[in-house]
C-alpha cells in the first residue's frame, strides 16, 4: 500500500528545525567544562570544578532539598484536590460542570505573570496574619505551586476517567456499594496510572516553576530555579552550566525509559 511520506524539501526543513531545537542544549556542555570562573569556552584544558562546586557549595544543595520538599507537598495537595474534584464530576455529573471545570482550569489559561501578581497579593496579605504561611515562606510557595499545577492534574485525571467504562461503576452501585466504596475500590484502582501521572507532572511543574516563584520569594525560600535565576541575572556562574548538563541528562534518561515502557505496553 502506498503511503504519503514527506519529500526531500520537508526533510531538510525539519532537520534545520531539529538542529535549532537541540543546539542550545548541546551548547551548555562545553561551557560546563571550562576551567575559568567566567562563562567562556574552554580553550585547551577541561575541568570539572563547576560540577564539584555543585556538591561543595551548600547553597546549591540547600535549594535542591527545598525544591524537593516544596514539590512533594504541592504535588500531594494538588493531586488530592484534583482527584476529589474529578471524582465528583465523573460520578455525579452535576449541573454547571462545564463552568466549574472552566473555573478550575483558569490558572492554566491566565498569563502566568498575572497569576504571579495574584499570588503575590495573596501571600503578602496572609503574611500579616501568619508569618508561617505568607510571603517568602516554603509553605506559601508550595501552596502557590499547587494553584498553578492543579489544573494540569485535573485535566490528566479527567482524561483517564473519561476512558473508564461507566458500567463497572453502575454494577458496583447496583450491588449496593456506597459512594466511598465505589470511589476507592472501583474507580481509583482503574485510574491509578492517571493519578500517578498527575502527581509526577505536578511535581515536575513545581520543581521547574520560576515565573510565580520570583514574585513570592526574596531571601528565605530560594528554590533551585530561583538560585539559577540569580546566577543568570547577576554574573553568569558556569556552575549553572554544570547543573543544566545534569538536568538535561536526567530528562533524556527519563524520556528514554518512558518510551521503552510504553513500547512494551503497546507491543506485548
Amino acid at each position, binding site marked *: 500500500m502506498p503511503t504519503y511520506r514527506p519529500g526531500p524539501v520537508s526533510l531538510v526543513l525539519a532537520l534545520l*528545525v531539529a538542529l535549532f531545537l537541540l543546539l542550545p542544549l548541546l551548547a551548555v556542555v562545553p561551557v560546563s567544562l571550562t576551567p575559568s570562573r567566567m562563562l567562556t569556552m574552554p580553550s585547551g584544558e577541561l575541568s570539572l570544578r563547576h560540577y564539584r562546586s555543585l556538591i561543595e557549595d551548600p547553597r546549591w544543595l540547600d535549594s535542591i532539598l527545598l525544591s524537593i520538599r516544596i514539590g512533594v507537598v504541592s504535588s500531594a495537595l494538588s493531586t488530592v484536590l484534583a482527584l476529589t474534584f474529578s471524582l*465528583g464530576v465523573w460520578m455525579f455529573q452535576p449541573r454547571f460542570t462545564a463552568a466549574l471545570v472552566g473555573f*478550575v482550569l483558569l490558572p492554566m489559561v491566565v498569563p502566568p505573570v498575572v497569576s504571579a501578581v495574584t499570588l503575590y497579593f495573596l501571600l503578602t496579605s496572609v503574611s500579616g496574619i501568619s508569618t508561617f504561611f505568607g510571603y517568602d515562606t516554603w509553605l506559601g510557595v508550595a501552596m502557590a505551586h499547587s494553584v498553578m499545577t492543579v489544573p494540569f492534574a485535573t485535566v490528566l485525571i479527567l482524561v483517564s476517567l473519561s476512558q473508564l467504562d461507566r458500567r463497572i461503576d453502575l454494577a458496583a452501585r447496583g450491588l449496593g456499594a456506597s459512594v466511598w466504596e465505589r470511589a476507592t475500590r472501583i474507580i481509583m484502582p482503574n485510574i491509578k496510572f492517571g493519578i500517578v501521572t498527575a502527581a509526577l507532572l505536578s511535581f515536575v511543574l513545581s520543581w521547574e516553576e*520560576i515565573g510565580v516563584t520570583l514574585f513570592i520569594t526574596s531571601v528565605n525560600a530560594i528554590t533551585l530555579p530561583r538560585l539559577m535565576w540569580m546566577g543568570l541575572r547577576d554574573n553568569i556562574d558556569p556552575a549553572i552550566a554544570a547543573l543544566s548538563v545534569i538536568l538535561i541528562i536526567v530528562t533524556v534518561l527519563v524520556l528514554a525509559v518512558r518510551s521503552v515502557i510504553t513500547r512494551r505496553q503497546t507491543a506485548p
Partner: protein
Amino acid sequence: MRGTLSDRMGAALLMAPLLLFLVLAYAWPFLGVVKWSFTLPRPGLGQYGALVSDPLVQSVFVRTLRIAAIVTLVSVTAAYAITVVWVRGSPVQRVLAEFCILVPFWISVLTRAFGWVALLSNRGLINTWLQSIGFISEPLTLVRNEFGVVVGMTHFLIPFAVFPLASAMRSLDERVLLAARGLGSSRMRTFWTVFVPMTRSGIIGAAMIVFVFSLGFFVTPAILGGGRSVMIAELIYLRIFQSPDWGLGAAISVVLVVFVGALMALLFRSVKPKQLV
C-alpha cells in the same frame, strides 16, 4: 436516577475542597489585584489613564505585540516543518523528530534560556567560532536585544505549537493526499492546496496558543533581553518590585487578562474547541 438528594450532596462534598481552595487562593486575591488597580496610589481611574498616556508603557505594549507576532509566525512555521516529519515520516524519522520535540519541551525554561546565552553572548560559542575562523573581528551583539528574545522565545514555544498541529495532521485522511498525487498533482501543489488547507484548525490553534503565551512571557525575555527589550510581563515585575507602583502593575495585569480573554473568546467562536485537541 436513584437518590438524587444524596447524589447532589456527594458531588458537593467531593468538588468543594478544590473549588474552595481556588476561590480563596486565586479568585479572591485576583479581585484584590483589581482593587489595587483602582485604589493605588489614589482611588480612581488614574492608573488606567496612565496606561493610555505614558509613552514608556505604550512602547512596551507595542514591542510586546510586535515580538509576539514575529515569534508566532516563526515558531508555527518551524513547528509545521518538524510536525510533518513527526506525523508522516518513516518510523525512524518519527522517533528522531519526537526526540527533538520532547527533550526541549521537558527541559526547564531557565536551562533553555541559559543555553542561548552560552551560544549567543559576546564570548559565547557562535562569536568565539566566528572570530576563530576570522570571519569577524568584533563580537556580534546577539543577546540583550530583541533578536535574542525572539530566538529564545521561538525555541521555547515550538513544542507547544507542535501538539495542535500534530493532532490536525493525524486526523487528516491520507487517501485524499494519495488521490491528489495519483491525479498528477506535484508534491508541492499537493502540500499547498490539499495538505495545508486541511490542517487549518491546527494552524489557528497553534498560532493562538503561541501568541497568548508570548504576550505574558517573562523569564526568557528577561534573561535574553537583558533589561533592554522589556516586555509586558517584565514591566509588571519592575513596577511591583523596583519602582514600587503596585497600582500601575495591577492595572497592566488587568488589561492583559482582558485582552487574552477576548482573544480566547474569538478563538472559540471561530474554531470549535474539539478541533484543537
